[in-house]
């Protein structure tokens, strides 16, 4: 049985195709109406019952752990304000425990740590439009973790972070245990279940719009002990260090990280995005930052690699056109 489960609710935003001839025209980059329509289409079959389950668990004091991305919250509020209010009540009274992550559930970290930091900060800011409570614990998209992720998340005020317990990497470390990050300021890491068997389970579940393999919400899981408390176990100085120099992701995620990064087109897009962020990060508008984050959404990166070659090229070319479009605004 799972000791904890973190349920993810996201709704990917569709980035519009941009032709080379449309560069410099300042056209809207995000297809909000199409994304909204997809949400509405999916709502009754795929979203509503999952949220009701979460609410029921909250009523039964099972304190479900939930991540809601900003687009998800926006569309939910627009589509079913009453349901949103019910969720808000449960969050604000601590019946639903919020888990923090990236605003758009993106892989911005694979593009640029700077962009990642902005997306994590954006999430914390954006969340205040919906809830009075803020999350204390962070889990990156796909549970992506390395030392620098910990450093950034720590600097933004989180109390702890969830990472993956892959035994091949951990050499004897186990899920459910707390470790110290390999960072300048010690930071607590709680390990979720990895790709080996462990008695203690923190399972990662796709509520909607995420790419975790399981979309089964186990109603019997009761997070009676607040997850923050797990991080407080023992004297922090006694925890051993968990050092990860290259990003590791959860085996519960549908694809491996190289599927998002290793194709030459993906590499080129991520490198060019990174160069843009490094060059203009202080000047980039909120809209342009959002677009950069959206280009790093898992689905978007995967489209470049997983669809037919022609479609992959089209996605890549359009994405690069967006980057050029952004760069021209800051010349």
């Amino acid at each position: 049985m799972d000791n904890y489960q973190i349920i993810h609710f996201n709704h990917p935003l569709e980035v519009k195709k941009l032709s080379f001839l449309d560069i410099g025209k300042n056209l809207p980059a995000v297809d909000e109406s199409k994304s909204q329509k997809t949400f509405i289409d999916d709502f009754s079959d795929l979203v509503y019952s999952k949220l009701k389950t979460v609410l029921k668990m909250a009523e039964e004091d099972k304190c479900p752990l939930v991540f809601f991305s900003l687009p998800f919250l926006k569309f939910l509020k627009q589509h079913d304000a009453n349901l949103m209010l019910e969720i808000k009540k449960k969050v604000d009274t601590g019946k639903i425990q919020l888990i923090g992550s990236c605003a758009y559930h993106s892989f911005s970290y694979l593009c640029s740590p700077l962009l990642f930091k902005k997306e994590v900060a954006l999430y914390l800011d954006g969340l205040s439009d919906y809830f009075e409570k803020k999350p204390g614990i962070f889990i990156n998209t796909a549970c992506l973790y390395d030392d620098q992720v910990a450093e950034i998340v720590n600097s933004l005020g989180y109390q702890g972070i969830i990472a993956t317990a892959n035994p091949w990497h951990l050499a004897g470390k186990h899920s459910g245990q707390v470790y110290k990050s390999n960072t300048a300021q010690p930071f607590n890491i709680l390990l979720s279940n990895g790709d080996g068997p462990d008695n203690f389970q923190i399972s990662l579940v796709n509520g909607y719009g995420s790419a975790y393999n399981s979309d089964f919400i186990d109603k019997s899981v009761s997070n009676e002990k607040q997850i923050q408390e797990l991080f407080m176990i023992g004297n922090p100085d006694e925890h051993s260090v968990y050092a990860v120099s290259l990003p590791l992701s959860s085996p519960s995620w549908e694809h491996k990280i190289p599927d998002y990064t290793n194709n030459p087109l993906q590499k080129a897009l991520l490198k060019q995005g990174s160069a843009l962020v490094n060059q203009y990060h202080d000047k980039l508008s909120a809209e342009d930052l959002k677009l950069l984050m959206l280009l790093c959404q898992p689905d978007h990166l995967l489209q470049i690699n997983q669809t037919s070659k022609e479609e992959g090229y089209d996605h890549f070319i359009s994405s690069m056109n967006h980057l050029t479009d952004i760069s021209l605004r800051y010349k």
Partner: protein
Amino acid sequence: MIGPGNPNPQNSGLGIACYHIAQNLAKKVHLKLFSVESAEEFADQEMESSRTETLNRQKLTNKKQLNADLVHLSVTSELNPYSYSSSIDIEEHYNENIEISVQEALEDFSQKIVLKSRNLDFDVIYAHDWTAIPASKKLKELSGKPFVLHIHALDYDRSGKKSNSWLFDLEKEGMQIADLVIAVSEYHKNIMVKEYGIKASKIKVIHHGIDELQVSDYKAPFDEDIILFCGRLSLQKGATTFIEIAEALLKKEQNLRFVVTGQGELIEEMIASCNEKAMLNKIHFTGHLPQEDVFAIMKASQVMVMPSLSEPFGLSALEAVSLNLPVVLSKNCGVAEVLKDVPKVVQSDIESYVIAIREILANQKQSSKIAKQNAESVKKRNWETVSDEIFSALKQELKNG
């Protein structure tokens, strides 16, 4: 006529040429067109729908195999497009399968043409490139009618050398049995003679022409000068040479942008190469664009480079020139025969391209004057003129036959 009915991303120059030739020939003769691609749009225009016959559309176009510009049909393991790929074995295996499948599809296509032609009263077989050769050969045998083969590109051009592929043999046989071969340039005629052993006396050169171009409304948002590559991203078109030229130019001039229009089998390698060279902020890949958009980019550019390994003609250079865009050509471009005062460079000589491009940019007034003169000159030769010459050649063959 056996050939493509419409231009598409795969047949590019061949499709455009055949489209215009068919349009104009149809005004003078009863033209029956057998095509592997969709010709519905073509048929909807002023011509009779019965003139167009689309065969094997699903089977062939979906596989994008019967396509004269497609390089990998003729490749073998040592051949260039994949020599820098890490997956040579896989590609080799893939190509073998494709080759068999293409031969089967070609056989099927040819049989259907022969079947459809049984009750057709025709005078001349007018065929374009290798996809039309087996059917034309059979029709000639059955009917004894003259066979005119119009060659737009050869395996030699696509692979950059004389190969021992079945395609090379097919093309050679086609040209041998044809009563007349139409070449698109003297340059290409020489290849037919030297590499394929075809008699020069049976080859007639008819250069392509150009009609007025429809151009999208576009103003480039860049401050920099634009250097353009326009064509299939293939070895034949010198697509990777363009990247080398861009790299060398950027070492001397920073105020430049490079635009690559078109798509093709080298796109991934080209992007990876630009990424490694940290040039992706300077070079833009547009993918396949509608013709009017490509012309708009031509209008907004300062120089177009055609570094082709072997370019039988090079229609896009003619289009560029008609839009007053200066061009730099490799010496292996047939289009050079109809363009005056245009820089022509040894295909692999990167430094010479760099100098030629820089000279154009440094003397924009003079370059623009030459470009305008060339534009005036090329506009005189339109597709109607070209088709008239083809019509005369067909009539002559009919007389001879």
